């Protein structure tokens, strides 16, 4: 069985990995020579199913809780299991209660514990929520490592030009570019800040009634700050308003971010279905995996397993 995976974002690469593990021959085709055109290139990389449950439906938790194990298994050493810290500025302390009421898997912690977890936040927040079971990874490192691993194990990566023919089945993982009818785009804007003055060991979510923001630590004193959610398919540059909101939130978490360098701004369009949940669907040419929305790294492992099973079962039916 030879499967052509169309799209080298997180959906495509996780599916390629899953298919390879189960003995299929895989080719990955994308318009760009790397994965930088995909929404997942701009992802936060939080494996945070309990936190996400605050605004997402139950499957995000049930499907997402296995993601950290999948990534650890596929790419040993990439997953950092330090949990997630959720805090709110004093005047928005009520937001913590609201967040807690809609989630599970956390403990309520006080200032001393926050300082023990993140020494640089000492004295800044009196209460917080700690989701010990959550994890994170660096999305770009993970995508590059996955490409490398797949390449080393015989997966061909083809780029641009005409789509190669000859595959038995095609798996479409092209996100918003697939232009699937029920799909809509949700614009997201992010920043990367760099400062040696602060260090964090885990993603920190800063609650705010209007502009909730997360900050994910990366190597090299860098911090990814994200992300806006705008019902638009516009992928033009970050707006001044969004930039201001993201920076404000970073500054609210720690004033030292005021001196950080803005080393990158990014804008991507997340593919989403009306219920904001991803789907694997059967198509005439094979399958489609789409609608990962803001849960690419969290839900692509479960989608990859489902899609691989669908493709390979089909093969058994033919046999």
């Amino acid at each position: 069985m030879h499967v052509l995976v169309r799209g080298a974002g997180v959906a495509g690469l996780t599916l390629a990995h899953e298919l390879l593990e189960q003995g299929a021959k895989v080719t990955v085709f994308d318009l760009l020579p790397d994965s930088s055109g995909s929404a997942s290139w701009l992802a936060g990389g939080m494996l945070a199913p309990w936190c996400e449950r605050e605004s997402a439906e139950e499957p995000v938790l049930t499907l997402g809780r296995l993601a950290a194990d999948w990534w650890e298994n596929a790419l040993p050493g990439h997953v950092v299991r330090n949990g997630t810290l959720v805090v709110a500025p004093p005047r928005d302390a009520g937001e913590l209660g609201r967040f807690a009421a809609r989630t599970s898997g956390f403990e309520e912690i006080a200032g001393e514990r926050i300082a023990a977890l993140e020494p640089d936040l000492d004295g800044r927040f009196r209460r917080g929520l700690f989701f010990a079971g959550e994890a994170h990874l660096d999305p770009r490192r993970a995508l590059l490592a996955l490409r490398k691993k797949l390449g080393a194990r015989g997966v061909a990566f083809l780029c641009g030009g005409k789509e190669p023919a000859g595959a038995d089945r095609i798996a479409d993982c092209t996100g918003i570019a697939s232009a699937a009818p029920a799909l809509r785009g949700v614009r997201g804007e992010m920043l990367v800040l760099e400062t040696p003055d602060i260090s964090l060991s885990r993603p920190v979510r800063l609650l705010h009634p209007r502009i909730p923001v997360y900050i994910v630590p990366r190597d090299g004193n860098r911090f990814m700050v994200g992300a806006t959610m705008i019902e638009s398919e516009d992928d033009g540059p970050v707006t001044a308003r969004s930039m201001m909101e993201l920076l404000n939130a970073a500054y609210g978490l720690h004033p030292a971010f005021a001196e950080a360098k803005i080393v990158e701004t990014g804008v991507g369009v997340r593919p989403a279905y009306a219920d904001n949940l991803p789907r694997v669907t059967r198509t005439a040419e094979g399958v489609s995996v789409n609608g990962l929305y803001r849960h690419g790294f969290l839900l692509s492992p479960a989608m990859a397993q489902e899609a691989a099973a669908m493709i390979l079962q089909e093969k058994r039916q033919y046999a």
Partner: protein
Amino acid sequence: MLSLYGEDIASRLLLGTAQYPSPSILAEAVRASGAGIVTVSLRRETAGGRTGGQFWELIRELGVRILPNTAGCHSVKEAVTTARMARDLFGTDWIKLEVIGHHDTLQPDVFGLVEAARILIEEGFKVFPYTTEDLVVAGRLLEAGCEVLMPWCAPIGSARGPVNPDALRSFRAEFPDIPLIVDAGLGRPSHAASVMELGFDAVLLNTAVAKAGDPAAMASAFAQAVEAGRRAFKAGPLEPRDMAVPSTPVIGKAVFE
């Protein structure tokens, strides 16, 4: 029946469409609320030319009247531009006019509001101004040509409910014949019922439903509260008094104890 700019509207509950967990849940909430009008924010969704076409398509499919708004606009110019864009996009001259004057409380800039209302009404818009409970400002808005007023009862999204019921009472008394819609600040169905009991014609909600644990269930709870409040107002509620009044007359009792 509620009549807004000559249109009969069956439901006295208007629902905002922002902040829901997903468009599907938004659709469920709108159905459960029975709302005949939904508001749609234009400001952010139109970042650039390629707009949230799919999202708007989903809202159009709800089959309810769309009242575009200028949420998030901080100047007259911004609000007027957004209103014009909304007219083109949704094919309606209805506009819920917001001109925000204060970043933290989202308090309306009432001076800008009156100015923007004048400009838009001149251009043929039917303006639904989001305002405070200030009677003088309200008078100016009517002078400008507004035929509906939308006073807040607390800051947007604050879920505090009517923080100044006396002001709302005098607002109602001052404008007995103008459709008045309480917009912003309602947190619970009991809040909605209480302003409807004061005689307001309708309420507009968003956060209280969108951010509830179960938005559709909350939408239906609000629908019932609005209905209950309206019926109570029509039925003529008893005014509070200082003295106890026994509901059974003591004199007529057969046996004194």
